[in-house]
């Protein structure tokens, strides 16, 4: 009988201790965000969508067509083609298959001219898989209008 009383007391005490935590959380800080209505701010280094920013001085791409990002990509999802010779060498194709992309950031790391950058954008869902192949126009459009002040571009620790 006494053992039963002890066990009952232990059960009540244990439950009470747990409920105390619950009550503390009830009056504490809110931790959730109403996501689709309320957007989440991501960190400046966020590995999000890739973009090709345009050089503000010349108005053209920063890419020097060195194919380093294409080579380093572990998923081989970047496809680059170029036309012309010497100074007139121009990008004719810069496709990124974002459905294959693993957001590792190796292309951003190896780029010598910071021509390919991450932008803090994370909503890329679409109804059709073909829409996930981003071409040159998509990537230019995705680029931030002004240079990112303290973002990935500025803080890269490339040796």
């Amino acid at each position: 009988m006494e053992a039963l009383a002890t066990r009952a007391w232990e059960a009540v005490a244990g439950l009470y201790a747990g409920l105390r935590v619950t009550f503390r959380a009830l009056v504490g800080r809110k931790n959730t965000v109403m996501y689709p209505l309320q957007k989440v701010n991501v960190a400046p280094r966020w590995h999000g969508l890739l973009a090709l920013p345009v050089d503000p001085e010349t108005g053209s791409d920063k890419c020097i067509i060195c194919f380093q990002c294409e080579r380093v990509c572990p998923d081989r999802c970047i496809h680059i083609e170029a036309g012309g010779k010497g100074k007139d060498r121009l990008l004719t194709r810069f496709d990124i298959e974002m459905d294959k992309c693993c957001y590792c950031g190796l292309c951003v790391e190896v780029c010598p001219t910071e021509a390919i950058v991450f932008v803090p954008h994370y909503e890329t869902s679409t109804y059709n898989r073909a829409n996930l192949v981003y071409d040159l126009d998509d990537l230019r459009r995705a680029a931030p209008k002004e240079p990112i002040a303290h973002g990935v571009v500025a803080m890269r620790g490339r040796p």
Partner: protein
Amino acid sequence: MSWALVERLRERFPEVEPFPREAPHEAGAPVGRPGRHEARGPTYHTPGAFVPAARLLEVARVLRDEAPFGLDYCSFVTGVDRPEQDLVEVVYHLFSMDERHELLLKVRVPRRDPRVPSVSALWPAANWHEREAYDLLGVVFEGHPDLRRIMMTDDWEGHPLRKDYVYQEPRWLVDLGAQRQREIEGLRLGDRA
């Protein structure tokens, strides 16, 4: 510490061939330059020895039970396919929980018919690792209680970690994929985007 262990093993079994000790490294030698390394043999950073397949069980029993070794823990069993030498190297990593020393054992077996005795009676932990090596490299462990494929499906053909393995999608998978693609296109989801 553990290299001394290899020496002890060699004293016990003369047919055991220790790994060549690592060549002294020149200070400041550039990293990642091949060429100068290529002429040299591989450097073994983890101590170990080559063991003939016929003596494996005997060596393993001594390593597990007898005093200077006491290697009671089998970390993994795997294989390395070497087609140019026509060999498969079966690799065992053994470790002693009390003494904290480790040892790699390598058994070289012919590539066409790789057979080694199973050590899963000595180290039960080797059971699944041997199944994995059988599945991915085709090494047959004789005396294994349950030598089935573990990663791939039971009807899989070939051993994927062999260097000459070529992946071919099974016919049924190709057909299924094409059918799913037609179904998805039939939904005309892209039009809404």
